[in-house]
């Protein structure tokens, strides 16, 4: 065939054979949908800003988030303190900035942990079937019988004061059954495909089939679930910190900042307002990114407006 034709012209080669319409690369298709919709783009930008803020917090934050300045407590936003100060005179802006670190750290760790464990369980259940499947499914049933927030409260509350990693553990634990179910469902439908049968026919071992054939194909839709889960975990952490069983003072977590602000809501509502808005932005950003990824990789949306 003659050289690669442009999108909209018909070109005919020497033998009179018409060239096929050109295929856009997968990445270009993905970007067109993902970055093409305003909403997803906004979400993506928000996420990038938050991640950068977390990384460069020591550089951007105007004050030390732990520095008390009791003379200037409970101030409204001013030129000195763009978001005001809290009940101990600490700069709100700096605490919000450092709060991104906590939120992202906990968010990513908890989701990562529950994803790994949940995925392994789900893969195993799908692959081995039989009693392995039944046991794992019953296990997830039991874990899911309690509203996840309550489960997280139990773990975090009983192990209170154990530090951030206890909080991560509590939050991650609650997410395991969901991840497991998702992975299992995906793996089961992938398993039906012929290429899995082909791998077994060639003599591939169970483990290798699972890791090299099933997992890479079952995984992409789960990316969506993972990004959405980050929002859920951040909300969960906020809730736990609000109740006092999450991140403990004086570490600035948006959740415990809301808790601090509760007492002073009549004097300075900003104390509780601002961290809430920050949480909303983060969750919104990640949710939009998740939506965008889902739309961009959905094969049914190909070629449709």
């Amino acid at each position, binding site marked *: 065939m003659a050289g690669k034709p442009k999108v909209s012209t018909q070109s005919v080669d020497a033998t009179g054979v018409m060239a096929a319409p050109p295929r856009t690369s997968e990445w270009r298709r993905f970007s067109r949908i993902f970055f093409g919709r305003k909403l997803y783009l906004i979400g993506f930008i928000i996420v990038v800003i938050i991640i950068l803020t977390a990384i460069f917090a020591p550089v951007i934050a105007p004050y030390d988030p732990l520095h008390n300045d009791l003379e200037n407590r409970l101030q409204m936003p001013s030129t000195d303190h763009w978001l005001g100060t809290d009940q101990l005179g600490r700069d709100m802006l700096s605490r919000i900035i450092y709060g991104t670190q906590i939120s992202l750290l906990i968010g990513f760790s908890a989701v990562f942990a529950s994803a790994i464990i949940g995925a392994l369980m789900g893969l195993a259940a799908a692959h081995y079937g039989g009693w392995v499947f039944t046991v794992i499914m019953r296990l997830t049933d*039991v874990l899911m019988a309690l509203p996840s927030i309550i489960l997280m409260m*139990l773990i975090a509350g009983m192990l209170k004061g154990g530090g951030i990693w206890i909080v991560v553990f509590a939050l991650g634990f609650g997410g395991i059954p969901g991840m497991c179910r998702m992975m299992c469902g995906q793996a089961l439908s992938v398993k039906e495909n012929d290429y899995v049968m082909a791998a077994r026919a060639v003599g591939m071992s169970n483990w290798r089939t699972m890791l090299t054939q099933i997992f890479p194909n079952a995984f992409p839709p789960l990316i969506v679930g993972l990004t959405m889960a980050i929002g859920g975990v951040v909300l969960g952490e906020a809730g736990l910190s*609000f109740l006092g069983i999450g991140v403990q003072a004086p570490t600035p977590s948006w959740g415990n900042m809301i808790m601090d602000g509760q007492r002073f809501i009549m004097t300075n509502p900003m104390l509780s307002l601002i961290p809430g808005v920050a949480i909303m932005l983060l969750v919104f950003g990640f949710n939009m990114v998740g939506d965008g990824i889902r739309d961009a990789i959905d094969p049914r949306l190909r070629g449709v407006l």
Partner: protein
Amino acid sequence: MTTYIIRRTLLGLMTLILVTMMVFLLVRLLPGDPVMRYMAAFVGTSTGQNNIMTPEQHDAMMTKLGLDKPIPTQYWEWISKVIRGDLGESLVIQQPISGLIKDVLPRTAYIGVLMFIFGTLGGILVGIYCALRRGTWLDNTLTTIANIGMTIPVFWLGLMLIYVFSYKLGWFPMFGWVAPWDNFWKSCTYVILPIASVSLGGIAGMARLTRSCMLEVMGKEYVRTAWAKGLRERVIVVRHQLKNAMIPVVTALGGTLGMILGGSVFIETVFSIPGMGRLMTQAIFDYDYQIVQATTLIFGGIVIFSNLLVDIAWGWLDPRIRYS
């Protein structure tokens, strides 16, 4: 259909039993000496003036708390009492738990049911409307509001609503509780803000889900067949589309109830509503194991029961499930 229901019920019961075991173990397997934790609750009272105990006192306390027996025995004792309706006695508050539950459960149930109805019904209606009028200004606005609504922390929303409507505008009381069976209208002023706080998230999530389910169904071939038969839009929507679209929506109802229960736990703290959520939260702080066990059990039971109802509804809606 009946075999399906029976199967599901048995499964639910088995899960419930496993949940009781899990709760029991969870509470017992936590690090630390339970006696010390128990004593910590009494620091400051006459009983626990000095928290130095002799080993004999320690052992005596263990026997009193029943903690020296092997775990399975403890479990068996507890569960046999539960079946007979006795949820034990709180060691911290020194009251029978069943009595406490009888007081707090109706309150939580009342607001919980209202939150559920508003959240799911409202969300479903909004979702259907948006799907039918897809692409219009209203659809885009409502969908964006729903997207934002899913990001709002429930307790924060409660605080903000209190600030605006109770403190600034003075329309509603800031916190507290009046039972609807005591004084209905007054009770409404007390519950309206808490219910609004939690329902918003429910409406947002349900609306999004319903909208995407409806859109998916609207593109199906059998809908085209319905159009080809000359049916009116309203008939097509109600008879052909809704029933199919509701299948995944109904299965999500169970999860929504869980979310609402969780939300109400926070809301009871924010609004100082003396419900079961607040009882449990307080018990967690006080290391009051008996109450934690009992309340977790009840929450778990509610969720399992509602999942059972959801399963049955699913079987009724989708004949393919019934006959397999």
